[in-house]
């Protein structure tokens, strides 16, 4: 256990989580107008038509897999009859399918972003930084799976990485769990942590706007001009309240 272990597997993840949570709260509070997926579909659709759904459906499966693998303790799954062998089969093959979908989609998307002049010109610096960490996270994760799970003997990350993550969230961090993890898994974890650190400052915030409420709301929305939320969707900020006469204020 070196200082590096504490830095990489305790301090850095906590810092990233803190920035992730506080960053999102602040941005949601102060940058509603910037909260968008900033689609470039109107510029180019031939490649996006394939790349975007492939990537998004792929990454949703990947996220689902990670939730099962990282946050559900092994004994719980075994209680439901998911043995180590069954889990390994499922994780490897479903995971590979999702990875192929995601990597292929991402390849199309990056190719499109780089080579379509219109799209390239609207790509911000933050977009590029985000792409680097998103792509490397996916790439290292896939490499690790291919190296250790498919061609290697199979590495049981549910005995090391998963408890480590849960140790972080129970505020009893145990960096020792991570020190012997294979190199590409370590890299994968580090780039992913950096991605979470950057997340609130990128267009990735659109993930938290998944419009599930659409399924239950009435079709036509009515809103009053005198909506207490103000002209927009949020309460007016301090100093920007509507003017009102002193008498009006007293009456409240």
């Amino acid at each position: 256990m070196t200082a590096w272990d504490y830095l990489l597997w305790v301090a850095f993840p906590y810092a990233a989580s803190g920035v992730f949570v506080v960053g999102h709260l602040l941005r949601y509070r102060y940058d509603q107008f910037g909260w968008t997926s900033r689609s470039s579909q109107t510029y180019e659709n031939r490649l996006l038509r394939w790349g975007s759904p492939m990537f998004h459906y792929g990454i949703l499966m990947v996220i689902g897999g990670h939730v099962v693998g990282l946050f559900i303790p092994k004994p719980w799954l075994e209680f439901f009859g998911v043995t180590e062998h069954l889990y390994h089969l499922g994780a490897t093959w479903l995971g590979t399918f999702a990875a192929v979908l995601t990597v292929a989609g991402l390849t199309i998307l990056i190719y499109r972003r780089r080579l379509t002049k219109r799209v390239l010109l609207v790509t911000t610096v933050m977009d590029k930084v985000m792409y680097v960490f998103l792509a490397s996270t996916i790439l290292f994760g896939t490499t690790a799976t291919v190296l250790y799970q498919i061609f290697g003997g199979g590495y049981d990350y549910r005995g090391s990485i998963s408890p480590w993550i849960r140790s972080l969230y129970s505020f009893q961090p145990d960096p020792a769990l991570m020190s012997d993890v294979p190199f590409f898994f370590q890299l994968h974890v580090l780039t992913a942590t950096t991605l979470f650190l950057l997340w609130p400052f990128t267009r990735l915030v659109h993930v938290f706007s998944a419009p599930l409420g659409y399924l239950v709301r009435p079709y036509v929305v009515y809103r009053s001009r005198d909506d207490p939320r103000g002209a927009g969707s949020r309460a007016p900020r301090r100093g920007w309240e509507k003017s009102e006469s002193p008498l009006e204020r007293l009456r409240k």
Partner: protein
Amino acid sequence: MRVMAQMSMIMNLDKCIGCHTCSVTCKQVWTNRTGVEYAWFNNVETRPGIGYPREYENQEKWKGGWVLGKRGRLQLKAGGRLKKLSQIFNNPNLPQIDDYYEPWTYDYDMLTTAPAGTQSPVARPKSLLTGQNMDIKWSGNWDDNLGGSQETAAQDPILATMSEHVKMEFEETFMFYLPRICEHCLNPACVAACPSGAMYKREEDGIVLVDEDGCRGWRMCVSACPYKKVYFNHKTGKAEKCTLCYPLIEQGKPTICSETCVGRLRYLGLMLYDADAVLAAASIENDQDLLDAQRACFLDPFDPEVIAAAKAEGMADDWIEAAQNSPIYKLISEYEIALPLHPEYRTMPMVWYIPPLSPVVDVVSNSGSDGEDARTLFAAIDKLRIPVEYLAGLFSAGDVVPVELSLRKLAAMRAYMRDLNLGNEPDERIPNAVGMTGESIQAMYRLLAIAKYEDRYVIPKAHVETARELEELGCSLDTDGGPGMGGPGAAGHSGPYGNTVGMPLGATVDNYNEMTGRASPTAPTTPGRVNLLNWNGGGVPKGMFPPVADAGSAA
């Protein structure tokens, strides 16, 4: 019955000269920004033509608007909620920017900075998306005045549905202009399609708006609107659309497109409707019954029951009065000459049109006949299938009867008023032939042809009394017990400079009614005497000048 008020517009197409002033002023006010260079909240199309964006009326291609589902239930043409959400990563029905046009500017700098040479410098077009040289191949009104229509007009979705083959040859064609803004529909498909719930219809005046803070850029509204009047700002990643200039409307002023229309062809006013009846009306099975179904949703603002219900909903008296004086109500419900654009999209649009008689009059006049004779015109309306069928394709889901009725009324007005203007005995049979009276024809003539400003725009102010009062506040010391208490700002109060003249007028003049109010004389609070220090500028009150001794000698 749930009474709601809708601010609506009607355009009299006979008067549109296709000058694009409305489009240009709208652009200057709303869309001269990066990201919406290609967007025209107001555009003017030449018809027959393919419109802007190209072929927007072809709903088999764009899947805009509503359709009736298998069990007669209304659903979005692009699919139900789950299907829409599953397509959120790539909207298959979204128009590309090239379907509008690639925005460009010119290399103006070249004109002044090019070194002296044998050739004059040229300002080449540069794409606003890539900054590179480009060839301009299309724009918002590329087929203006049927330019190039021999190649493109065949793609006009309305022509494609017509039974007769229309020759797009110069001598045999007809044309008119169709200015378009957002329809501010009663059953808006864009609002229904917005996954974030960021689009809404305002309860007070029915204006459909995008909450820019709530919009997450899913783009479903752009494809769901069958009129393609919601635009994607490719810079901010948010949807934008015509706002019916709500900041002006709230102050009782007309929209910028209406105010600047040189043909004075736009009408603005309220329409009361029963919000509970809209869904059933939009779900009528037969497309051609939708026009009558929508008319049935409108409420009579003179009906005591309607007035009582409106008041119960909290509608102010001046709004009910405005609904009674509304030119929209007259043109839609009283004269029945205005028709909606594409009722078959089932969105219940609220920008209606008076179909143009001019294609018919042109043919009659060109053939050497009398273009103002009622019988000739009636016969021509019956005989000229092509323009009438085309108009029916636009305004009544292909049913020629309402279009014919509207055109016959316009023809009757033309003929009847000519007799009057020439001093002939007016022929009462002409109005009777279209189910009107001479009196109502003349009232309609005043509204359509004279078209006074105050008749065209009957717009009640939004009720924000407290905010307005503050804005007009004269003296900050003039509060209860304050040092300036009872100053000249307080109406009817005696101030340090004596009595005031009339009611205090606002510091700013916002609309026509206030302007006329200011120009008309106000009564002094002390009869017979005017203190000029307190004169509010309102006309010439009695007693301001000494009485003129003799009217004859004064001249």
